[in-house]
């Protein structure tokens, strides 16, 4: 018998639990005084922005004058109709005012109450009501009697005594007043001047019911709204916080159920659930359009009338369902367009290309292997040999030559870029605007290969074409070469993995299934809510889902027909010839390059020249470009351009000297080869 247990093998000492700090952090402190007094972010301006600038004020005034003028003219032309209507309704108005006065005077509004009391045989209530009636009628009857007498006297005076102008004035005032009283409530006398779009107001209750109808949300009360529902573009935007366990993509998947729910009952085209960028995945942006988006008039292209694009900056491409502008970028990326025939591929590609040529520095190149001539407008801008249109073998070979040229550019550009970067034109070894302006050889190239599957699946040309394209996609990005590939056949053969995985900007226009969607946009795109399968070819031409710039979103290319394309191309040509952009560089794009310059400074009659003799001459020719050219750099640049530098022996004052140099015949051959290629 022992009271204190001893530890044996079956007993283990258990230390007492230790108390740590609480898991929940202490409650947040209230903002301190300094934070409150310095924060002015939520103060709204006292004078609205539209009244602050002179320009805005002028615009506002112009609008006001125009609007008033239009309203006046509109009503003036309809004044006879208004007069007839008023004459028709004015007697009714007189009758109504008389009956209203009588009802008031004899307290007929309590008639129904008294009858009801009598029907219930409620004598006490009836008694009270009839006493009240007696009290009222007592004085109201007198008012009516005297009022009638007064009106009769005024009418008599007007008829027999008053001058004509007073009579006319009275009629002029009385008829509209009585017409207003007499007209039925749904027959306004004045016609409507502006037609406003009718739309149904979106309420929180509707959103909740619609979300419940998807089946993904079980608890109605768990749906909360972090922001109020408000107008956004031509529709309503509801920002919704979904309950636990439900994320925005769950709802996006059930867009059709959302649209078909009893609360909404709208075409799918009007219901746009989206994820929100920079928010938690459970937050859903639900945009309900006033009308089906495909029937809305798209906003015009920003660059349509005038304006320049910049290869190195985003430019306007089209719009999203909410009619907000969507941008496109060219620098340091490539583009891929995929969609079934009729999905508006060529139209979408053309928008990008037309924007690109509106940068006077950009050199376009087009290989369109369908032969419909969608890009004919751009042909005058393409350098020689850089335009091909047709489904024949010749066009394919031209496209191959273009790929070869682009690959050559990938070779010649890096040393130049390196040199300019060393000069401090860019902090990275990439082409930027300063470099492209400095040196024509670094002009950005935008190369379009439409219906590229024709080339890639060609039994002979396919393999080398894919190899070259892959290489260009990988290397050309930083060298100012933007490749645009468009295809209607979407499979692994038409979009090889090496290309698709290196293209950043991808647009899936109307496609048939989730397989194509994932092939174009990358695996998982369909799961993340991309639904290009919902677009119908021809009807939804130009609509597509895009990844690579901002969140994945449905976008529609601006619509530009052939005439528009021609007008824009004409502007682009004018920009280049008149030198809007760089006046110091009026020469055509390809007019000078290294080989031509060497040829120009060549000492006539010499079969070969030392590099160290050529370099100072080049520097004298174009000090801004060749300013700090060294013999070594010259050698590597010449090698890039296809001319070897060889050891040349010379005797100077009887002593032999050997230096690196260039042979004239090799230079000539390289220039000729380049001309043939172009």
């Amino acid at each position, binding site marked *: 018998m022992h009271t204190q247990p001893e530890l044996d093998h079956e007993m283990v000492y258990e230390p007492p639990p230790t108390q740590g700090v609480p898991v929940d952090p202490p409650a947040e402190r209230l903002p301190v005084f300094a934070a409150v007094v310095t924060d002015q972010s939520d103060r709204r301006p006292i004078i609205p922005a539209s009244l602050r600038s002179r320009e805005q004020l002028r615009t506002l005034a112009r609008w006001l004058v125009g609007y008033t003028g239009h309203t006046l003219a509109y009503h003036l032309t309809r004044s006879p109709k208004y007069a007839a209507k008023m004459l028709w309704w004015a007697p009714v108005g007189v009758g109504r005012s008389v009956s209203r006065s009588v009802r008031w005077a004899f307290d007929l509004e309590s008639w129904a109450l008294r*009858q009801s009391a*009598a*029907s219930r*045989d409620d*004598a*006490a209530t*009836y*008694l009270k009501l009839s006493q009240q009636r007696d009290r009222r009628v007592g004085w109201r009857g007198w008012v009516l009697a005297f009022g009638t007498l007064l009106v009769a006297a005024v009418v008599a005076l007007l008829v027999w005594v008053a001058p004509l102008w007073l009579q006319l004035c009275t009629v002029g005032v009385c008829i509209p007043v009585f017409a207003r009283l007499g007209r039925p409530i749904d027959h306004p006398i004045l016609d409507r001047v502006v037609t406003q779009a009718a739309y149904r107001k979106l309420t929180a209750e509707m959103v909740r019911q619609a979300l419940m109808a998807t089946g993904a949300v079980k608890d109605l009360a768990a749906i909360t709204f972090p922001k109020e529902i408000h107008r956004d573009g031509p529709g309503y935007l509801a920002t919704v916080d979904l309950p636990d366990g439900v994320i925005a993509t769950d709802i996006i998947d059930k867009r059709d159920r959302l649209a078909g729910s009893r609360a909404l009952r709208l075409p799918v085209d009007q219901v746009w659930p989206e994820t929100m960028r920079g928010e938690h995945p459970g937050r859903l942006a639900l945009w309900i359009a006033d009308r089906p988006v495909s029937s809305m008039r798209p906003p015009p292209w920003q660059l349509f009338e005038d304006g320049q694009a910049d290869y190195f900056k985003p430019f306007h491409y089209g719009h999203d369902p909410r009619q907000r502008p969507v941008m496109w970028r060219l620098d340091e990326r490539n583009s891929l367009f995929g969609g079934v025939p009729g999905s508006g591929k060529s139209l979408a590609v053309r928008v990008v290309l037309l924007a690109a040529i509106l940068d006077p520095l950009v050199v376009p190149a087009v290989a369109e292997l369908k032969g419909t001539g969608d890009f004919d407008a751009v042909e005058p801008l393409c350098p020689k040999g850089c335009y091909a249109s047709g489904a024949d073998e010749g066009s394919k070979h031209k496209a191959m030559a273009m790929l070869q040229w682009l690959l050559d550019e990938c070779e010649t550009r890096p040393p130049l870029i390196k040199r300019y970067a060393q000069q401090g034109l860019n902090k990275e070894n990439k082409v930027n605007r300063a470099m492209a302006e400095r040196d024509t050889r670094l002009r950005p190239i935008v190369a379009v290969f439409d219906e590229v599957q024709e080339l890639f699946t060609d039994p002979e040309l396919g393999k080398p074409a894919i190899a070259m394209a892959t290489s260009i996609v990988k290397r050309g990005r930083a060298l100012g070469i933007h490749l645009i590939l468009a295809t209607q056949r979407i499979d692994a053969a038409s979009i090889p993995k090496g290309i698709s995985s290196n293209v950043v900007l991808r647009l899936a226009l109307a496609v048939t299934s989730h397989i194509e969607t994932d092939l174009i946009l990358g695996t998982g795109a369909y799961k993340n809510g991309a639904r290009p399968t919902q677009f119908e070819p021809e009807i939804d031409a130009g609509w597509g889902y895009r990844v690579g710039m901002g969140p994945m979103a449905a976008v529609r290319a601006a619509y530009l027909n052939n005439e528009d394309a021609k007008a824009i191309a004409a502007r682009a040509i004018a920009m280049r010839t008149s030198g809007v952009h760089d006046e110091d560089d009026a020469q055509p794009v390809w007019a000078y390059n290294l080989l031509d310059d060497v040829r120009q400074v060549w000492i006539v009659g010499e079969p070969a020249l030392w590099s160290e003799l050529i370099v100072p001459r080049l520097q004298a020719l174009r000090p801004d470009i060749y300013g700090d050219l060294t013999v070594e750099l010259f050698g590597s640049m010449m090698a890039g351009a296809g001319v070897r530098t060889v050891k040349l022996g010379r005797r100077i004052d009887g002593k032999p000297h050997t230096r690196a140099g260039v042979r004239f015949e090799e230079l000539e051959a390289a220039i000729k080869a380049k001309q043939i290629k172009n």
Partner: protein
Amino acid sequence: MTLIAVIATALIPLALIYVIVCVAQPYHTCSRCSGAGKRKALVRVKECTRCLGTGLRLRLGRQVWNRIQHTRSGR
């Protein structure tokens, strides 16, 4: 024959007037208490039992009409 016709022609306007009165003035003063609402019983003054102290009685025509209405609406 003529007597019946004379009575009928006299009754129709009378009936019309009675209908109007039933709508516009559905109550008449209680005949038991002559509108006072109370009556002198043997010892003390009591509330009139017929008009329940209101001094008003629904006209017979209105009573019939109400009954018909209630029957029709199923109450």
